[in-house]
């Protein structure tokens, strides 16, 4: 098994920007839209190299989603980007009717998801977006874990026909997956094999899961770590194969436990192979101002919280 190491901290939003730069050079149908957050979304290079394929819509996200839907009529592949809060809750009905129900090939690209947005506080820290988006019929929901994976996912979704929600974040975090990875939508990645417990993580929590697995190994606990970058469609087989082996699971995500990855995993287990599960997620609460590290500590979303959840779930086996 590959031993993952931090190749240097980078923000996942820059992975999106890098992916967009590459798509700008390789796919003439890709167009980008943004609602007054170009710098935050890191798409300056795409805009510089393809000014005619960029649409600045201003602070008008509802209009952006509608324009994106319209651009698909004529064969364009729009990447509509803003903060996760404004890319989902604010425009839910526009996404529902004009994009999802209308079967439009729009990529909704959402930065600053979760608590790690930091100091701006709860108005900007959405912890409900995975739930909102996964409930829409036909919507693919992806939450990559680091810079390299976000870049690979950005490139991959251009080849997938249909609406996609791509979720990423603001802080610089460990970049540990291979730069040359091929991103397969809906395919879970086994990062570390183990036999006592399965840790299923998404987004920023994947690296934390690896750190937790290392600590647990020192305590004689063998943890299997699975990176679920695609929350919908969910790789049910990978989950079941692992939990059948280990007999218990901890899910970890930067999201409310209502509507998140954890609930999706519970559904699979309840239907096919009931097993004890603990949820590392926010507990039906809003966030608040603070540094990303402080927030992840306070709300129980780091490697220590995963470790504690593992110890708890093992007792329930």
């Amino acid at each position, binding site marked *: 098994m590959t031993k993952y190491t931090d190749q240097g901290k980078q923000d996942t939003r820059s992975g999106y920007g890098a992916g967009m730069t590459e798509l700008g050079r390789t796919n003439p149908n890709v167009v980008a839209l943004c609602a007054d957050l170009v710098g935050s979304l890191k798409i300056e290079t795409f805009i510089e190299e393809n000014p005619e*394929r960029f649409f600045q819509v201003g602070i008008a996200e509802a209009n*952006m989603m*509608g324009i994106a839907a*319209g651009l698909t*009529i*004529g064969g364009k592949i729009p990447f509509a980007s803003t903060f996760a809060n404004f890319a989902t809750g604010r425009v839910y*009905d*526009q996404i529902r*009717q004009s994009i999802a129900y209308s079967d439009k090939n729009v990529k909704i690209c959402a930065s600053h998801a979760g608590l790690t947005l930091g100091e701006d506080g709860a108005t900007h820290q959405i912890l409900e977006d995975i739930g909102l988006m996964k409930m829409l019929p036909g919507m693919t929901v992806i939450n990559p874990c680091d810079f390299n994976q976000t870049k690979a996912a950005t490139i991959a979704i251009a080849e997938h026909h249909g609406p996609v929600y791509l979720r990423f974040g603001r802080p610089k975090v460990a970049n540990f997956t291979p730069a040359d990875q091929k991103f397969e939508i809906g395919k879970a990645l086994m990062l570390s094999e183990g036999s006592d417990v399965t840790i299923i993580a998404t987004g920023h929590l994947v690296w934390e899961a690896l750190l937790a697995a290392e600590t647990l190994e020192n305590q004689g606990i063998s943890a299997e770590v699975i990176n679920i970058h695609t929350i919908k469609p969910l790789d049910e087989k990978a989950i079941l194969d692992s939990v059948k082996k280990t007999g218990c699971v901890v899910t970890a995500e930067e999201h409310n436990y209502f509507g998140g990855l954890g609930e999706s995993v519970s559904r699979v287990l309840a239907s096919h192979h009931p097993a004890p599960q603990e949820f590392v997620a926010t507990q039906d609460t809003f966030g608040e101002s603070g540094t990303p590290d402080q927030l992840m500590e306070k709300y129980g979303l780091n490697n220590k919280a995963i470790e504690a959840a593992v110890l708890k779930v093992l007792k329930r086996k």
Partner: protein
Amino acid sequence: MPNTQELQDLVVQVRRDILRMVHKVNSGHPGGSLGCTEFLVALYNEIMDLNDGFDMDGIGEDLFFLSNGHISPVFYSVLARRGYFPVEELNTFRLIDSRLQGHPTTHEGLPGVRVASGSLGQGMSVAIGAALAKKLNGDDHLVFSLHGDGELQEGQNWEAIMYASGNKVDNLIATIDRNGKQIDGETEDVLPLGDVAEKFRVFGWDVLEIENGNDLDAVIAGLNEAKGRTGKGKPVCIVMTTEMGNGVDFMMHTHAWHGKAPNDEQLANALEQNPETLGDY
């Protein structure tokens, strides 16, 4: 191109289709549909440059987006009679397993529909997107859209209106059906819209008005005038005054028939006022 009499006959036949469709399922929106019959008949049979058949991308042809999706009866009738799907399918309006949903959708694969509408205020943004795609594709065809006046109470429209002028989307003709009525009453009582034409003007659009949107000749003249104003750096808006329920005397001058179907007796009366021309489905 059909002559005026043929278009008039089509108008009357479409009115019959609308009335029969909503009567059969005792639901749907006849009022706004009847008010926009002349407009949609003219658009699809006289004004738009259309390809044979239907494909979603619509490259090399004019496009139309219905934003006020509740007037689906007139949209479906005009599409069917233009040949997008068999007119007999109008029989399935609002029934289970039908492609003719209560509000138009692409989801069931009905030819002629390019986006779902029904939740109001979204169509102008979509039309702008399609117009931008035409520009990127070097396609000099036009994009038309239709909006209810009450629908302008939705804020997304004003985002779109600002965007279209600010970005010189001059291959777009958005028509506002100014019938002055909405579900709860007169628009000016529910939430006043004021001078719609002036509002579009100050937002930077080129605006023209069709004073009688139920006069076929006036509608055709207005649409041709609007076409002549495209490509000049501004999006074009037509403020078209219509009468909700037009062509059926007891449905006119009231908002009562916005979303209500006639009973058997009322249907017979309404059909008598609109004798069969091209043949019922």
